[in-house]
């Protein structure tokens, strides 16, 4: 097991390094530089040179890269070009909001997805199953911003049931603030869950149907175990294993989806920070945000693999 963990950790570190390197060079391969956006009006070559020097962009690319890696090893993500503040501070300011949004959506997808998937599998071929299949296939076609905008317009603006922007009413304190927080979370979370739920439940249903056809389930039936016990205890325990991988991947999709959701709902997370930093070509912020997202996804996948290995010892072999 120790060898498996070490092997997985090394792969995770390698993946993160590739993500860091790719992000660094891809951003710089894009046409223009941070001064490109300052063309409205006069800018002398001296001014441009001064700005590039301030940003450290006057150095050869490889030197910039080495220096960036050196700083990263010291935990320094650099200084934002536009905000003149440490990227770490900026990210830490926004990260909790994204974790909250993506975390709640993730847990809700699982909490609601499992019973739906199990119910559909238990009623295979009947109308609840057909309904789920339609919902699952439709879920693949749904686009987060479209769903978000629909919820915003109808439930937020037209019916006035939920706030249409922000994360918490700034004028609230104490318990009222927590209630306001939950109230503000409903629509962004709903838009993420609606998109993720169908495909997740459908995958679980398919796995469960496969498992329910296995010999050991038939043996359990022969032993006289009740249908509910066969389904939930023996079936689900085995069917959920492949769905674990999907959960890991879903976390990445959720974080990506949060970029779009946060923009529509004016939610103050990392997603919106990325949206703004792209427009400003703020390399350090973009690099920091992408690295953080990469770490989130890689760690989530590594944990999923480990959990998989714990639950299914054959993986470790």
């Amino acid at each position, binding site marked *: 097991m120790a060898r498996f963990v070490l092997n997985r950790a090394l792969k995770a570190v390698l993946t993160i390094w590739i993500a860091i390197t790719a992000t660094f060079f891809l951003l710089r391969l894009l046409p223009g530089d941070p001064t490109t956006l300052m063309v409205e009006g006069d800018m002398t070559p001296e001014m441009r040179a*001064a700005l590039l020097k301030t940003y450290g962009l006057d150095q050869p690319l490889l030197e910039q890269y080495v220096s960036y890696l050196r700083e990263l090893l010291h935990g320094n993500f650099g200084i*934002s070009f536009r905000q003149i*503040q440490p990227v770490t501070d900026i990210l830490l300011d926004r990260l*909790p909001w994204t974790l909250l949004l993506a975390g709640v959506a993730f847990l809700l997808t699982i909490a609601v997805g499992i019973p739906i998937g199990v119910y559909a599998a238990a009623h295979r071929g009947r109308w609840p199953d057909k309904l789920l299949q339609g919902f699952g296939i439709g879920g693949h076609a749904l686009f987060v911003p479209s769903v978000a905008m629909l919820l915003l317009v109808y439930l937020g603006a037209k019916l006035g049931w939920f706030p*249409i*922007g922000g994360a*918490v009413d700034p*004028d609230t304190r104490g318990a009222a603030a927590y209630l306001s927080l939950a109230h503000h979370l409903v629509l962004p979370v709903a838009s993420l869950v609606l998109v993720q739920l169908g495909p997740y439940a459908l995958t679980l249903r398919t796995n469960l149907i496969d498992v329910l056809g296995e010999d050991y389930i038939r043996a359990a039936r022969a032993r006289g175990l009740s249908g509910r016990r066969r389904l939930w205890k023996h079936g689900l325990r085995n069917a959920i294993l492949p769905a674990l991988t999907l959960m890991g991947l879903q976390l990445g999709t959720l974080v990506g989806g949060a970029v779009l959701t946060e923009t529509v709902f004016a939610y*103050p997370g990392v997603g919106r920070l990325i949206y703004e930093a792209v427009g400003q070509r703020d390399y350090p912020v973009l690099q920091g945000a992408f690295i953080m997202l990469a770490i989130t996804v890689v760690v989530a996948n590594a944990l999923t693999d480990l959990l998989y290995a714990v639950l299914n010892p054959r993986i470790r072999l």
Partner: protein
Amino acid sequence: MSKTINGRARRWRAAVALGAAAALGLSGCGLNEDNGASGESAAGDAVLRIGTTTDVSNFNPLQSLSKTDSWILNAMYPHLLRIDENAKKAPELAKDYTYENDGKTAVFHLRDDFTWTDGKPVVADDVKFSAESIMKYKLGNVAAKLTWVTSIEAPDATTVKFNLSQPYAPFAEGVGFWMSVVPKHIFEAAGDLSKFPNDSNWVGAGPFVLESATKGQRYVMKRNDKYPLAPGGKPAVSKVEYRLYPDVNTMMLALRNGDIDLMGTPVPASAAKTFENDAKIKMAKVGALGFAHLTYNMNNKDLAKQEVRQALSMAIDTKSIISSVLQGDAQQMSGPISPIFADYDNTEIQPYAFDPAGAKAKLTAAGYSDGNGDGLFDGLELGVACDQSNANLTRVVQLFRESAAKAGIKLENECVERNTFLSRTKDGKYDIDASQWGVFDNPMDQLRSTYLSSNPGGINYNLLKSPEIDQLINDAAGTTDTAAFATKIKNIDKVVHEQAYLTPLYVENFQFAYNASKFGGFVASPSDLLGMVTAYSLAQVKPVG
């Protein structure tokens, strides 16, 4: 039994872990605990809520380049001059300005009743320090406007003299309008101002000063009780709160729902009608300083020919574009100066009429032919670049492509992502550029920036090298006599039009939406950069009733 206990213990551990994670998350979020501003105010005091699109990226007004930053920072740091709704410069911190020494010295006379919020008066030394810092650290776009400055003097508390290497007619207008004045006694201590974030303990002298900034959510400004340009000596509104809505559609919903009272951004022409049935929302309409246009790359062998540029100008149906793309909410232009500058707009110039047959005849006369009979001139194939995030211009390029085909000109749509577009434009890697200028506060700066070949920092996207234009621009730039200056500008308009260096398309009307049932008194400025969110405008706002 032991199995049950273990199961329970596991569940408890999981619950505790989840709770701790949630608590950590929420404490990280702050959840209003550390926020100094409550948003509540004493009875009778009004809070004006404004929708903005992005966070403040830089609190240092000398360095900031963002439009949305300026909405907040301009309310805090005074400028010598402001621009009024007719695009004329009006006094702000400076009462007036004069030129001495044959135009080589610009002298500003300051008001003596502006004070910083820490009680110190705003004096000439603050202006001198601000300008010298910009020059020293080459900060922001103002640095280019100070190119001619050789020295700055502050002989007394209310006089600032800028000594110039050569006369430049709109120097005072440009610097007066664009340069923020910062408190020397605060900023001097920061050392290198290019690295000064100025992100706390704000001291300002505008009508409002920042009180708290909650990144990603809101910025709260409190009233400066001693702002001389507000009726009664202080703004009627006690606080201004900026709330963030990155998506303009969400911002419109927020205005309709009463979450905000004013949209900082203009309402898109296509969306303005959605407010028509809402009795509480009013729209203020103003013209614009900038305009949409086609610019031709003079390094292209075909576009270097005057006949080709003129034919292209005749191959675009501007009137139809205005009615279909902008729902008629724009004005057609003829010369290269926005008509809002009434003193400089050459009204004798007429736009090139849409005439595909005439354009075809012009190109035939210039030696182009259609050998294969496909209706298009052989070898005349041009790309039109634009910023694809500008929905109006993307549509313009499509319509231009269709109408130019009728004139036998094949155009390719090369609209791309904004940064790529700007980069290509800057590097001259395009044939025709369809874009929209933002703010030109005076025609001389505009002409100098766009056509003067010896201005390396300019935005001469034509890559024009015309000794005639250079001479005309340099001659006008040194003319401090107002009437003679206007005549010279109008003459440059004429030459640019005849040469068709650019085809001006339209100048948009901007519409700004606000909740008229709660507030009134806004003063709109002719630019989406300023709109109704200027220091002067915010100081005039009054609660209704």
